């Protein structure tokens, strides 16, 4: 089927460049051909050159196809080259659909927290109460502020994210990552009791979550509870070695802010 699409699209392209203006106009307006072209793309490995070639080909025919601009940028971000020009183009064509994605890519992949904050605030103004990839804009704003070490602002946005979840999904059903990051933000803001409350709430939602166990250990060090701290660090190490992770879809590609590795735990254990 994939080969058929390839042939089909190639044929249509040659047809297009050799035909009259009216035929081109009809072709370009037909949504079916756009879908067909996208299907050709999806047969490819997105890290291959062919993916880029086909994106360019489709964009030559439909330069206003915002989704393809986004798909052109995606593998480059995943490979460490931040092709923001393609995302900018996508956003200029369809801001409601593409601005949240650009914000997400800046925040998560490029770790461009300042740039992402601008985009996330614009996205929030455009799409009230919106979000993407399982989280609200407030969650990503919280991550960005945490990344630039503005703990008070991070607390504000994670509180907002959690309040929204409590309202829509019911109290007690808040996402453990939101609870973890709120706890961590409180820890950075030196509000130890609130930090403890939310880190524990996160662990309650996902008991094998290495990060809140680790930061709970750090918190106990601050409280001079060395025995309990060691226990938390060891728990965190055990879960990490068992393969437990942050449970975010894009964790395969990038670390999330303040995500830990084995060496972080070993370092803390050595100091105990």
């Amino acid at each position, binding site marked *: 089927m994939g080969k058929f699409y390839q042939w089909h699209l190639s044929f249509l392209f040659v047809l297009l460049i050799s035909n009259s203006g009216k035929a081109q106009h009809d072709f370009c307006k037909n949504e079916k051909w756009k879908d067909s072209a996208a299907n050709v793309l999806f047969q490819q490995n997105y890290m291959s050159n062919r993916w880029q070639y086909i994106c360019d080909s489709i964009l030559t025919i439909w330069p206003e196809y915002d989704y393809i601009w986004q798909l052109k940028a995606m593998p480059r971000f995943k490979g460490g080259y931040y092709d923001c020009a393609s995302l900018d183009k996508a956003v200029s064509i369809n801001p409601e659909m593409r601005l949240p994605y650009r914000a997400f890519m800046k925040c998560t992949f*490029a*770790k461009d927290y300042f740039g992402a904050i601008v985009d996330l605030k614009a996205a929030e103004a455009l799409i009230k109460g919106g979000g993407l990839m399982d989280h609200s804009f407030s969650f990503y704003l919280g991550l960005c502020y945490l990344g630039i070490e503005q703990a008070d602002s991070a607390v504000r946005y994670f509180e907002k994210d959690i309040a929204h979840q409590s309202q829509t999904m019911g109290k007690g059903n808040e996402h453990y990552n939101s609870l973890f990051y709120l706890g961590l933000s409180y820890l950075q803001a030196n509000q130890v009791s609130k930090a403890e409350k939310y880190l524990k709430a996160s662990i309650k939602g996902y008991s094998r979550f290495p990060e809140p166990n680790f930061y709970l250990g750090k918190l106990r060090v601050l409280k001079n509870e060395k025995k309990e701290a060691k226990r938390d660090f060891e728990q965190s190490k055990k879960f990490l070695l068992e393969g437990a992770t942050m449970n975010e879809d894009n964790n395969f590609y990038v670390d999330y802010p303040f995500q830990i590795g084995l060496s972080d735990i070993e370092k803390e254990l050595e100091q105990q």
Partner: protein
Amino acid sequence: MKTIFIFLFCLLVGQNAGAQTNLAAEYGLDTSFALVDSCPAKNIVEYFSVNAKYPESSMSLLNRIRQKAKDENQIFKQNGFVSFRFTLNCKGQASSYRLFMLDEHYKEIKFEQSAIRFFYDFVRSLKEWKVQPTNKYGEKYSCYNAYLNFQIRDGKILSVAP
């Protein structure tokens, strides 16, 4: 006939595909591949296909490189992103470096030689790369591509990715 169409298709419109400018050679990075006879460099995959992100957390790498900058009095005069892509061979050795640089508005720029040398030394000092990792189906890969990106803002290293 089908091949001709596909060829024409790619030839006519594929000219923008390689938009990145690799400046590794200009900055004196080692662009050769450290070939090991027993495992030729074929079927090279991306690190994320074989769960081979560097085992040390980005947070830890960031702390270490900030410390290194402090120890060496390294000054950064430009804002933006410095990205090193490289290939790991079957012994987990990094080589075949590629270098990409962007300013804070994602436009291509050239960083100062001393800044690039500073980051390059750091990247080359990392020796814990996974050796012959496997994908989710248990298939072993001898070589894979990885990258490290450093973001600089107002003279400070703001983040390390991935």
